[in-house]
């Protein structure tokens, strides 16, 4: 009798454990509810400009205005004539030239010769330039310095205004110079 009670007791205990187990684990969790909604106002400070120009801000500028922005903010590292500056502590890239060199033994990769989209130039300057005080230029300054670089590269005319509608339409010389990754190279398989 005593033994039987223990057995029953254990049985009840086991059942209890079995019954409890699912609730201990809850359901297979696919949604946790952590984090908070991100408001449009909070997201407004971010940008990343794709080739179609989506997200380009209002404003604009041309090469004439851009020449001054360039002289004040860019020339120290990228050179008076956009030729780059390799000096120690500086190391700014060359920005123009190099067209027609990409298939040669000495390819020169610049905005003019290599970059496929003008929108990338806007995004990068607004994002990360000037190197020592990134993000400090106004949208008008960015548009105008982009216009200046594209104009010096003879991609647009000096009088052309760059803004949210004109910039994505700029045809970069190396627009069709890229292809998707063809790897793995199948000759390297057993």
């Amino acid at each position, binding site marked *: 009798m005593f033994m039987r009670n223990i057995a029953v007791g254990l049985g009840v205990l086991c059942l209890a454990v079995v019954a409890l187990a699912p609730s201990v684990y809850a359901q297979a969790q696919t949604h946790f509810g952590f984090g908070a909604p991100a408001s449009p106002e909070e997201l407004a400070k*971010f940008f990343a400009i794709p080739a179609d120009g989506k997200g380009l801000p209002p404003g604009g500028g041309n090469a004439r205005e851009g020449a001054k922005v360039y002289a004040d903010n860019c020339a120290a590292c990228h050179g008076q004539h956009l030729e780059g500056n390799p000096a120690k502590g500086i190391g700014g890239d060359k920005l123009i030239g190099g067209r027609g060199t990409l298939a040669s033994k000495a390819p020169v990769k610049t905005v003019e010769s290599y970059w496929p989209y003008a929108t990338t130039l806007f995004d990068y300057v607004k994002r990360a330039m000037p190197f020592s005080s990134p993000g400090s230029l106004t949208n008008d300054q960015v548009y105008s310095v982009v216009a200046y670089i594209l104009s010096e590269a003879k991609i647009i005319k000096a009088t052309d205004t760059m803004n949210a509608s004109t910039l994505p339409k700029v045809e970069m010389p190396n627009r069709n110079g890229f292809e998707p990754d063809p790897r793995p190279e199948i000759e390297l398989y057993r």
Partner: protein
Amino acid sequence: MTGPAVIYDDKAQRMADAMVAAEARAIADRKAALEDCECKEGLFPTAGVTSRRRFLSFAGTSLAGVAGAASFAQAQEKAPPGAQYFAVPADPTKEQGRPVAGDGGYGSRSQFETEVRQRFPTATEYTSWSFTPLDKMVGNITASGLHFERHHNGIPTIDPGRHMLFVHGMVDSPKKFTMADLKRFPSVTRRHFIECSGNGLTEWNKPTLKTVQGTHGLLSTSEWTGVPFATIAREVGLKEGSTWVLAEGADAAVMTRSIPMEKMLKDALLAYGQNGEAIRPEQGYPLRLLLPGYEGNTNIKWLRRLEVSDKPFMTREETSKYTDLMANGKARQFTLDMESKSVITFPSGEMKLPGPGFYNVTGLAWSGRGRVQAVDVSIDAGKTWYPARIDSLPEPMCTIRFSYPWVWDGKPAVLQSRCTDETGYIQPTLKQLVAIRGDNGPFGSIYHLNAIQSWAVAADGSVTNVHA
């Protein structure tokens, strides 16, 4: 320059020359230290180095202008980075050691361990990279303090209490997550390598750097802990047609890369842990994207934002920089996988074998497409191959340590290793790779050099970087 008909442009040439000079200075320092070391043969250059000269020479490499008698006493007391200097008793069994927790509760490495990352001498220190000293490393995991670095505008200091991850774009509910929020989600812990796709960029045309730290040191392996992106994707809901995700860092470069959604959902981690503790600042503290097997640059550090989209954003890094210009003038884009690769780390460049006899040749092998399946070793420049021993457990997109028992007969030899991954891909020779990628590197196709590395062992035991 001599060698093949490949022309470095002036920028690439200057950088390569500067790195050769920096490496030569480091090697000279190491040799000077060895003169006071009992291991004169140069096989184990850091063993038992206690001399004053060692500390002086170490200081000389790390502090510009430290030289002469005035700074000697100071240099003598200086411990290497990551260590503290303590007086060395003649017999440690005859006096008490240091008190428990006297270090404040966080330990440091031995003052006798001097290995450090070495920076590539780019013109500015703010966009630059540093190499892991692979020749001195043991096992499979890279010490967090020796993990290679690549920064595009310095290392930011970020308060984790204020850091947020925003996830938005083509999602049902745009959300923001604090670090505390992210740590509440179930996490996974996985070992993966990260390799910069520029690893070896000086080595396309001729053997340029002398040590394996220079030729292969943009490779490191850690145990990473974090939340799978898939978990967060369920949390915000993905809209129909979302195929790419922009990842953005909170550094001064505000680094951005576009990542295929397929990869993000497969195995991307939002990682906050590295080797059992918080990710190091140089590795993205408090949060980084971890994309197993993808080129290093895509593993966005200091991650603050993920924007879901139906197309890539064509950022500066994925158009003008991390693309591979072929000989025909066309460039490959989104070459994201790091392919099967291996390297012998012992013996390697600038080491010297003391004489004929047994050597346990050892190295690392890895693949961005899965597990390492096999490693072969050759001692005759690839004419014959022998299977290596696999010394650690192969895991997906993770390095393994391999070894090969070699009895050197004292004759000149050329050591190579070759990795085959689980997809059947075999690590190519440099000749095979150049035949495919073209020879307009190193300013053409400078990235993704995964060719077999050759180390020549001369009759006097000296080991040098060669193309064979």
